[in-house]
């Protein structure tokens, strides 16, 4: 196996131009598509942020969480509580207050969960998230039970942009798309730096060879905990962004099947690639939306896609694409 790791100047340039192109295309999309598509793509970007957070645990640290709905849900409900009880309607305040809340929740959950690995870790994350879900259902006078809590359209950019009067909904959707796009871009850059930092390398080392990593003096449990904290916080931020778009924080984003969807997203895009979860988040959003619109057996349809995915594309969409690209590249330069 003669394989060379990335990092050369050529691949750096390719990465930068690729990212810039993708961002320009995403920025131009609202000019050519309808409102519904803009809304859908916003959901896709939010799912991508959630999956990006999830993947620092699965792809980079080697820990499969089955409870990431918890952080997404905490983010969403944090926004709902801030709106209902504090009367906050500013998106910036939602983020500034919500992110520390999800970070603290992730730190607590992580502190318990990273004591174990493999299936035990997965079960713990699942169990803890289910506790939150049942609390959200039972404490209905606080959480609204199955009805959830309403979230009004927030103002953007410190009340510079508010949405009232005729056409407010349309203006909100377009503005919010750009808002989410900017947050998304920041998350991508931030996560890219993290996984290429010494810390990111240490996580990959722990993933590949825990014992040897320990014998480099790396304190395994602390690193896993930090990875968990970051992971939950990113996914929680996605929940914060999701609540105003959805207009409602509902307990189904706390339910374990939603954690499953996040796992699905990462598998779909390919969890061994940095861009995999991003692509997975966007593609999954469309896949689910159209599956629901096409058939009432949409869950069966998604199940079939999942089975096919694992058999035919075990490395996900991005994994398969990069394999094809590598083959074509090898042919060009023999």
């Amino acid at each position, binding site marked *: 196996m003669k394989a060379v790791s990335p*990092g050369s100047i050529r691949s750096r340039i390719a990465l930068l131009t690729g990212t810039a192109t993708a961002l320009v295309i995403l920025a131009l999309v609202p000019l050519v598509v309808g409102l519904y598509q803009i809304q859908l793509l916003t959901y896709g970007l939010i799912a991508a942020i959630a999956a990006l957070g999830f993947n620092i645990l699965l792809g980079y640290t080697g820990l499969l969480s089955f409870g990431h709905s918890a952080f997404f849900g905490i983010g969403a409900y944090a926004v709902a509580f801030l709106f209902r009880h504090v009367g906050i309607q500013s998106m910036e305040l939602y983020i500034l207050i919500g992110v520390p809340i999800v970070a603290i929740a992730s730190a607590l959950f992580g502190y318990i969960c990273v004591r174990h690995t493999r299936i035990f870790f997965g079960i713990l994350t699942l169990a803890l998230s289910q506790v939150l879900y049942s609390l959200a259902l039972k404490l209905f006078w606080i959480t609204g039970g199955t009805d959830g809590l309403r979230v009004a359209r927030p103002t953007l950019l410190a009340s510079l942009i508010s949405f009232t009067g005729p056409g407010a909904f349309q203006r909100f959707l377009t503005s919010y798309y750009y808002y989410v796009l900017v947050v998304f871009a920041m998350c991508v850059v931030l996560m890219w*730096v*993290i996984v290429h930092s010494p*810390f990111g390398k240490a996580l*990959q080392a722990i993933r590949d060879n825990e014992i*040897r990593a320990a*014998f*480099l*003096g790396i304190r395994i449990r602390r690193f896993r905990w930090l990875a968990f904290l970051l992971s939950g916080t990113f996914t929680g931020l996605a929940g914060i962004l999701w609540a105003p778009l959805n207009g409602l924080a509902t307990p189904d984003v706390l339910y374990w099947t939603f954690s499953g969807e996040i796992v699905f997203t990462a598998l779909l895009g390919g969890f061994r690639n940095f861009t995999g979860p991003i692509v997975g988040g966007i593609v999954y959003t469309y896949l689910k939306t159209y599956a629901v619109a096409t058939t009432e057996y949409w869950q069966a349809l998604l199940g079939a896609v999942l089975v096919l995915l694992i058999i035919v594309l075990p490395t996900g969409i991005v994994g398969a694409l990069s394999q094809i690209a590598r083959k074509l590249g090898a042919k060009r330069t023999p």
Partner: protein
Amino acid sequence: MTILLQTIDLRKSFGDTRACDGVNFVVNKGEFLSLVGSNGAGKTSLVNLISAHLTPDSGKILFEGNDITRATVSERIKAGIARSFQIVNLFDAMSVFDNVALSIFSRQGKATYMATLANHDRDVHDETFEVLGQFGLRDKSGFFAGGLAQGERKLLDVAIAYALRPKLLFLDEPTSGVSTHEKTQIMDTVSSIVRVGTVTAVIIEHDMDVVFRYSDRIVMMHEGSFLADGTPEEIKANKDVANILLGAPLSA
């Protein structure tokens, strides 16, 4: 001679098997020591106990006079004890460069840095290439560790431990599973680096030619305790050692 490491009546049993049966082990500063003995003699267990991979049932471990019996793996590494592994233990999905760089990041306390790019750290970059150069792996820096040949993997395994700049380096069978030619190459590299870098080295080795050629002192283990301890000449002259090496029963 200054004592660097000392174990006092160190014991470890696995069920009825006594892997270390009251071992009093002394390593002097600057020496190149070989730990020999048949399979199951307790060599690897002893190294595991000293490196905190195992916890002793009883006894003490002193390093530079400090009691480290209860110290964690990372505390012992900080104190200056590093090791390689019998079965090559690398980060296969990472580049050769990253394998060594991570050791240096960890040693410098930079492994928790999240906001800087690993490849942009000049100090670590230069030191990594220096270490790779010493081990003859400079040309392979961009390769995935999983793609190296066995001999190179053995060298990288030692390089990762060496990059921690330990005072005491344990090498568990650094030459197992490679050709005779590569053996000499690995041992020449390792011994020259150890001597230049004023590192104290303890190797576990089966090949007695290698042992006699490179060691300052040889310690022989048998069934969890020490059977012989001396210079290569003394060990060569020892009858019990010869008997065990040839598989004959002890005379006593």
